[in-house]
């Protein structure tokens, strides 16, 4: 029988209990009559320290703690897509459940799926192999895998038809002769990464539909990125835009310690959005995990592991998964809060000394992999970071920076001017951008690398000239430098700014991005030629096509590509006319 213990001491989300029988570290326990879920986080002689994932008010000393003999686990299965769960992947109930009560959240009720076996009795399988498919209603079919540790010969497999996801659908005789059965729904310990055959090098970007990201600071498919920004700089709006527009097969959206109304917004919007790739509702490729800021703090600590485990579950089916975590700072604060309650020695910023290694554990679960079943899948991690008072030298931002490859810094001044996404082009970076040159060539932009370099140096130059203009005045700059400033303004307005709420511009396809980059570059060439030919800068800056260029993202949709050619032709004509009047006045 499992071990028992009795509560001695309670402080917020943690408790200390005197035990009878052996508890294991990280064992999941149930506390009191309401069976609150908890986890053993430390063992000291005959005492255990437990963190409780639910509200502990009303708990009293003397209450019984029951061990389960198993590590804290979550239940993975075909019922996850389209659902909404708390930090430990328990369904948040329907609309009729208006409040979150402690001890009231059971594991989701079994659901029926249309089951179709892919293998027959007698087949030899390895762990993580596709044995069947399951679908519910019109939603796309999902693959059912054997558990990673289950290999052998299939003794029995359920026939095609409706089966509950918790019913045993397959029996296997392992190599050692023992028999195992498994269901569509399978448990997995939340803190253990799921195994893969091998990791692959990344060579393609995750297409996000955001110009500043795809064109300037791309993140790899299977890569990791962080978005640090103070409050009000648009982290959440950007993450939501990425969730809507990115090219992954499955989106895991983790609201960790954030606002309830934002989750309500996602829930209201996503069912109405249509996935352009298959015409199905966006919700069918989305899993939402929500632990809002007023929900139990210890579950916030666990939610990030639940989310990444769910991501790996879909990756193992050979899918590309993007996990948006908003925000990893709240997770770190939960870690700090729980650690403080245990009286652990605080490190930098009050965070426990193991913050950096925990962050590393999390980000290392990203990657492009060959699954146990031999398919290619990936997990891309994108984490928001909320540095206190916008100070990027604080521990969470700093440690995150060590582990991510793409770093998108949100700038408060851009946000104040409502210039979104407020990603600062000089402070942000993407370490492996050069890996994607070949990919962009397949998208019809073989000049991508040189255009990108040209734009980045233009922005660098703009910052330098602005510093100078602040001292000597803008009018005192030579015309060529004034033109540089004009070009940089255009680059910012036309390409870097992109409204997340505009129906036309919220998602820019790679072809549109490439066309826009070429147009802006062409403008820069023509403007410089004209200036060198003696045309007045004022005449260039008031060309009607300049305004059209600045607004082209908003005016021209992904499917109107010929309009970019028309705009290019118009620009050439206007510049030609300038040249003509310029030379006629000269003569």
């Amino acid at each position, binding site marked *: 029988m499992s071990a028992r213990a009795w509560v*001695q001491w*309670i402080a917020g989300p943690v408790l200390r209990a005197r035990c009878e029988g052996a508890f294991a570290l990280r064992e999941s326990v149930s506390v009191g009559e309401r069976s609150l879920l908890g986890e053993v986080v430390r063992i000291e002689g005959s005492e255990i320290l437990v963190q409780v994932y639910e509200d502990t008010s009303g708990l009293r*000393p003397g209450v019984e703690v029951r061990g389960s003999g198993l590590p804290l686990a979550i239940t993975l299965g075909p019922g996850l897509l389209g659902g909404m769960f708390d930090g430990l992947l328990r369904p948040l109930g329907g609309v009729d459940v*208006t409040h979150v009560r402690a001890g009231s959240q059971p594991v989701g009720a079994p659901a029926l799926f249309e089951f179709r076996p892919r293998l027959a009795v007698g087949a030899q399988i390895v762990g993580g192999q596709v044995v069947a498919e399951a679908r519910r209603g019109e939603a796309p079919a999902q693959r059912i895998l054997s558990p990673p540790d289950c290999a052998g010969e299939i003794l029995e497999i359920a026939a095609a038809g409706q089966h509950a996801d918790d019913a045993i659908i397959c029996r296997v005789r392992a190599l050692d002769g023992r028999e195992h059965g498994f269901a569509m729904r399978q448990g997995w310990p939340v803190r253990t990464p799921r195994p893969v055959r091998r990791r692959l090098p990344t060579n393609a970007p995750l297409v996000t539909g955001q110009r500043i990201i795809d064109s300037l600071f791309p993140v790899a498919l299977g890569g990791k990125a962080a978005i640090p920004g103070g409050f009000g700089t648009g982290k959440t709006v950007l993450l939501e835009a990425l969730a809507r527009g990115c090219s992954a097969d499955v989106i895991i959206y983790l609201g960790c310690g954030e606002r309830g*109304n934002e989750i309500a917004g996602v829930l209201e919007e996503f069912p109405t959005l249509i996935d352009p790739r298959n015409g199905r509702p966006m919700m069918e490729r989305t899993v939402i995990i*929500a632990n809002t800021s*007023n929900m139990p703090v210890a579950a916030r600590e666990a939610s990030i592991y639940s989310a990444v485990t769910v991501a790996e579950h879909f990756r193992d089916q050979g899918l590309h998964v993007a996990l948006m975590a908003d925000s990893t700072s709240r997770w770190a604060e939960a870690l700090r*809060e729980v650690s403080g309650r245990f009286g652990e020695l605080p490190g930098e910023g009050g965070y426990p000394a193991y913050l950096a290694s925990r962050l590393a554990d999390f980000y290392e679960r990203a990657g492009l992999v060959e699954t146990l079943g031999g398919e290619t899948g990936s997990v891309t991690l994108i984490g928001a970071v909320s540095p206190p008072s916008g100070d990027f030298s604080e521990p969470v931002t700093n440690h995150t920076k060590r582990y991510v490859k793409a770093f998108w810094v949100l700038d408060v001044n851009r946000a104040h001017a409502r210039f979104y996404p407020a990603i600062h082009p000089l402070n942000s970076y993407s370490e492996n951008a050069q890996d994607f040159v070949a990919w962009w060539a397949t998208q019809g932009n073989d000049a991508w690398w040189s255009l990108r370099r040209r734009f980045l140096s233009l922005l660098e130059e703009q910052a330098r000239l602005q510093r100078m203009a602040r*001292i000597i005045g803008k009018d005192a700059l030579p015309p060529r430098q004034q033109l540089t400033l004009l070009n940089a303004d255009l680059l910012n307005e036309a390409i870097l700014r992109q409204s997340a709420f505009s129906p036309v511009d919220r998602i820019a396809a790679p072809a549109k991005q490439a066309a826009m980059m070429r147009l802006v570059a062409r403008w820069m060439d023509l403007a410089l030629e004209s200036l060198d030919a003696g045309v007045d800068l004022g005449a260039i800056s008031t060309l009607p096509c300049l305004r059209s260029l600045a607004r082209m993202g908003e005016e021209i949709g992904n499917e109107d590509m010929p309009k970019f050619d028309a705009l290019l032709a118009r620009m050439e004509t206007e510049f030609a006319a300038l040249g003509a009047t310029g030379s006629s006045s000269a003569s």
Partner: protein
Amino acid sequence: MHPLLLVEHAAQKLDGPLLFLKRTLDVGLGDAVEIRGVDGRARLGRIAAIDQDTLTIEVLESTAGLDLEHSVVRFRGEPLSFQLGPGILGRIFNGVGQVIDGGPPIAAQGHYPIDGLPMNPVARALPRDFIETGISAIDVLNSLVRGQKLPIFSGGGLPHDRLASEIASHARLRGDSGGDFAIVFCGIGLPFDSAEHFRSALQASGALERTALFLNLASDSSTQRLLTPRYALTAAEYLAFVEGKHVLVILTDMTNYCEALREVSSSKGEIPARKGFPGYLYSDLASLYERAGCLRGQPGTLTQLSILTMPADDIGHPIPDLTGFITEGQIVLSRELNRRGLAPPIAVLPSLSRLAKDGTGGSYTHPDHPALASQLYASYARAVQTRVLASVVGEEGLAESDRRYLVFGEAFESQLVHQIGPRSLEQSMAVGWRLLASLPWHELTRLSDRQIAEHLGSAAP
């Protein structure tokens, strides 16, 4: 229900608002207690911590006059709760929900735990209804919607009280006479005269009958200060989700609340995080702010307007910083604008309403409202940038086009931000379009050609 339990001669230590008892029985964390001292007066308290042999009790009223020998502690066996029923509007309560206006007690219909329960995010409805506050800088640029939590970041000596009472008096739904509208005013550690100012302002506008006032004065105990917003929000939730009213909660001043939290935390001997505040300040603030919102299928809504004074006007201080991470935007007041005599002195650039996108444009206000707000922001940001430039090189060193932005910036502040008396949204938007008409139209890249032709017309230079 647990039997009431009495404990005598168990007190071991009294430290400020905390009473430490020898643990002789098993009681629950957060349970309510009553402490009767040698003077015979009963004081409310709650269990703040439990360990092997000690119970820590937060006493919610003054501990002066208590001693270790004679204090009798009665355990209620359940968390603090608030007896509520119809007729709480127009009444005045102290910081722990007791009637202090001399009237009869509230006829209770139910009792509600003051900590509430977290709303299930799935059951929340997205806040959508635009609230017209009568303030242009809010209505046009940072629109408030029902169910939102929008704090005012202020500083000592700035007219935040006036702004809050103006919003409370004029706020209305468009095309609606006000509906079933109620105000819950919660004064936390307020000086008596500020409390009196609110009361008289609400009375003058006739809003007092639909207001429930909760007053924790600066002289009341700091443990009580931690509970005042919880009582007020419990009353607000009752009004919104039991009686179905649209409730506006004004919490002032949240800085006092956080100071009290720090004080109580340090007397409990907890490990401090930033600036001496406890590590759970974020979670604690969230447990208050997140009580705003709308529920699907329920007519009532709960909107929060909390005021906080930024210590030393520092927006990076933990109190405004953590608040800003929880609330849906912020309205920031500026000392400089106030000195220049502009009222309300709203600093537009750092202010933000995250839910404005859900409650403006389309059928909510005017289809071109979001574009107008975006363009005003872009142009004003450029004006402010130009101002910085002009302060170094002088106005003469600026290009003609830049000088135009300087003029625009001045006009923006003196005509749009500054106002005398409330404005309707239409009036506020008209001011905005008029201001934009003075700028070169080819630089208005956030507006479409149609919007320029329609609203700026031939006025374009």
